[in-house]
């Protein structure tokens, strides 16, 4: 069967991998010797700021790296677009394509091939990953241009893109797991990019370890899937669901166990309560990394995985409830932290955690489409916000504290305009992408059979807080009088085109990205839902009609419009409050903070969650490790090894006394030996 471009779907992950190999060779054979030579001379002893190293004579390989890095991802994007177009040309029920690359793990009847699967869900993901990824690669070429380890950066970034595409394109849970671990590794490498800075290397380790906790759950979930279904291939697993539920093998309890374990993985990767703590610290990495990995793509892997496993999740009301509750709780919890943070990137980090909470809320109420829709729009506007903040930081020579910004509107017109659009989008202003996706989630949280009015209320409140802290960010950064250090203010400049053009493109996407999913009630047509329908139809067919728009049928149109107006009103309240506090009465926030010092400190210190974890887990594990180290390893294991050595040495010490050096003794032992030998021969 001729499938044309779809046969080349393997190019999508392969192209970034090619970039890894090329840039890796350059990093190893050109850049590393150069850096080592430089370190040996020690002639450049400047520190590391965010994108602000010193100026170097540009080495010729840097241009090549700056071309290869973005180009391979751009090429992967082109292939993705062509492949998705080819897929879209097929009839809706036939939009499914699997390409087996090679048989990977085969044991008895079990087989997990290295295979890629393109369906509506993974096509959305590859478009987001390669599209947004390409823009961020281009931006990085400008943003990181002052860095010494330039090629190393692009090796990691390309490797990440490869791993993420493997994750979303894999046709079974094991291939997904390979990508899952790969993105975790790249996240660690990129957070710790400035590894000479202790806080950065600590943040990298923290991210990796916290992620491992989640990965452990994910692995157990996959094992349980294998144990129950005898296979880990998506199509086979989901096809067996009705049969196994009917004959009692797949009970609700097992489905709950599987899905909760998978969800533990999602919690770790997508930074939900209680494993969200690594994401804010991940801001130690370069800002484009925060945009790509810790906002647009990697952290959405959990949402993707839950959506991919939707037919399993729908079997277990308990799991659905847990997912929705954790999502809603995370959404509001981290939004409140976002209010008090002063570091521009940390505000965005908590905002990301909060928005991911929305996506899980959507999944938890059965609105997987809405979750993926928000995933996509969020990728646009959050990547834009991060890149915009990177542009601000770049302009201010590495300053990240919003208290030392202000009045940047006139200095950074493009950055301001694009970031303002993204802020409007995330706040849910009608007409922009964030409005459609967020409102879809709010409506489903209210109307779906898995939904609840409390979930809606929490999510709506979080939306109001989101609008508040995002406008606080914009007002503090771009408006008011300048609070910049005089030294910094002199150097303020708009970023180069390689940085501003991606901003502008993302701004366009932040506006129009939502138009493919305009709900029926606004006289639009939800193309996005229609596109994803075949993927989620399976769960819906099993009597859980929550994936589609069926919920809406039970509620009057006026109610939906009313709730929509309500959420917009909440968002406007948030914006108004931010305007009042940070534009009109600018000393008011301080007064409020001083009025409730206890509460303010608690929130400012992120509810002391890091400290609680440190006390409950980290300290315990460290102490336990010390006991194991000293009592078990040093005393017991080393005792055995050293004991054997001491015994051998003692024996040798005794035996060597036989060598007296006196010839007579040797002569006597010679005689004795001869007598014994002769005696033996004679008496034999």
């Amino acid at each position, binding site marked *: 069967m001729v499938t044309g471009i779809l046969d080349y779907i393997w190019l999508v992950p392969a192209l970034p991998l090619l970039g890894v190999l090329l840039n890796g060779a350059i990093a190893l054979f050109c850049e590393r010797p150069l850096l080592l030579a430089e370190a040996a001379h020690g002639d450049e002893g400047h520190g590391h700021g965010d994108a602000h190293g010193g100026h170097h004579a540009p080495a010729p390989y840097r241009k090549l790296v700056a071309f290869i890095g973005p180009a391979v991802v751009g090429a992967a994007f082109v292939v993705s677009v062509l492949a998705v177009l080819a897929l879209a040309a097929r009839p809706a029920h036939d939009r499914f394509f699997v390409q087996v690359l090679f048989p990977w793990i085969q044991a008895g009847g079990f087989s997990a091939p290295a295979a890629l699967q393109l369906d509506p869900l993974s096509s959305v993901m590859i478009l987001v990953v390669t599209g947004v990824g390409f823009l961020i690669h281009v931006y990085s070429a400008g943003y990181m241009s002052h860095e010494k380890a330039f090629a190393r950066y692009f090796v990691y970034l390309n490797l990440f893109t490869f791993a993420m595409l493997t994750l979303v394109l894999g046709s079974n849970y094991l291939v997904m797991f390979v990508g899952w671990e790969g993105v975790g590794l790249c996240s660690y490498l990129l957070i710790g990019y400035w590894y000479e800075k202790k806080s950065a290397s600590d943040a990298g380790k923290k991210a990796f370890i916290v992620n491992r906790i989640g990965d452990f759950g994910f692995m157990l979930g996959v094992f349980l899937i294998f144990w129950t279904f005898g296979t880990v291939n998506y199509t086979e697993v989901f096809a067996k669901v009705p049969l196994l539920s009917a004959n009692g093998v797949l009970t609700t309890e097992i489905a709950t166990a599987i899905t909760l374990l998978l969800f533990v993985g999602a919690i770790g990767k997508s930074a939900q309560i209680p494993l969200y703590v690594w994401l804010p610290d991940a801001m130690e990495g370069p800002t484009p990394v925060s945009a790509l990995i810790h906002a647009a793509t990697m952290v959405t892997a959990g949402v993707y995985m839950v959506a991919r496993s939707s037919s399993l999740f729908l079997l277990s009301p308990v799991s659905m409830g847990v997912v929705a509750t954790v999502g809603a709780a995370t959404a509001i919890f981290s939004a409140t932290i976002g209010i008090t943070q002063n570091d521009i990137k940390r505000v965005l980090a908590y905002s990301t955690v909060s928005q991911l909470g929305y996506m899980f809320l959507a999944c938890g109420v059965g609105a997987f489409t809405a979750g993926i829709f928000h995933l996509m729009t969020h990728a646009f506007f959050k990547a834009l916000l991060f890149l915009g903040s990177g542009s601000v930081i770049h302009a201010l020579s590495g300053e990240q504290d919003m208290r030392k910004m202000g009045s940047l509107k006139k200095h950074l017109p493009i950055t301001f305009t694009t970031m303002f659009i993204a802020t409007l989008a995330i706040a849910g202003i009608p007409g922009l992408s964030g409005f459609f996706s967020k409102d879809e989630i709010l409506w489903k949280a209210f109307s779906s059979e898995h939904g609840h009015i409390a979930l809606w209320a929490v999510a709506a409140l979080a939306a109001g807080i989101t609008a508040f802290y995002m406008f606080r960010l914009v007002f503090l950064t771009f408006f008011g009088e300048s609070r910049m250090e005089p030294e910094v203010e002199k150097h303020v400049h708009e970023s180069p085109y390689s940085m501003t053009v991606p901003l502008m493109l993302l701004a366009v996407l932040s506006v129009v990205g939502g138009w493919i999913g305009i709900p029926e009630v606004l006289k639009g047509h939800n193309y996005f839902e229609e596109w994803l329908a075949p993927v989620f139809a399976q769960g819906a067919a099993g009597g859980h009609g929550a994936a589609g728009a069926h919920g809406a049928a039970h509620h009057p149109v006026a109610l939906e419009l009313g709730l929509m107006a309500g959420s917009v009103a909440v968002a406007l309240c948030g914006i108004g409050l931010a305007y009042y506090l940070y534009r009109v009465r600018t000393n008011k926030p301080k007064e409020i903070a001083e009025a409730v010092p206890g509460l303010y400190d608690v929130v400012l210190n992120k509810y002391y969650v890091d400290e609680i974890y440190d006390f409950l887990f980290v300290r315990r594990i460290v102490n336990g490790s010390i006991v194991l180290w000293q009592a078990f390893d040093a005393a017991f294991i080393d005792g055995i090894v050293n004991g054997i050595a001491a015994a051998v040495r003692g024996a040798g010490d005794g035996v060597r006394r036989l060598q007296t*050096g*006196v010839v007579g003794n040797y002569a006597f032992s010679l005689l004795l030996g001869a007598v014994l030998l002769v005696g033996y021969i004679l008496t034999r």
Partner: protein
Amino acid sequence: MMEPTAYLLLSGILFGIGVAGVVARKNALIILMSVEIMLNAVNVAFIAVGSHLGDPTGSIFAFMVMTVAAAEAAVGLAILIAIYRLKETIDITELSVLKW
């Protein structure tokens, strides 16, 4: 052909005296002499048994042993002289540096 018993008995006694000298005495010169006694005890046994069997090999071996013994005595005495010059003693209990 004569019976070798008495010669072998003599040979055994001589050998025993040699062994006792090597093991018991401290003077290196005496020890060398004791070794010579042991070698000649063996010569007696070779010749006696060779004569008893009518085989000349025993006598040939005795000559062989005497040659080796002469060489050994020459080398041994040379070493003793060298040691005496160095240590001013040939008491083997005091010549025990080669140990442990």
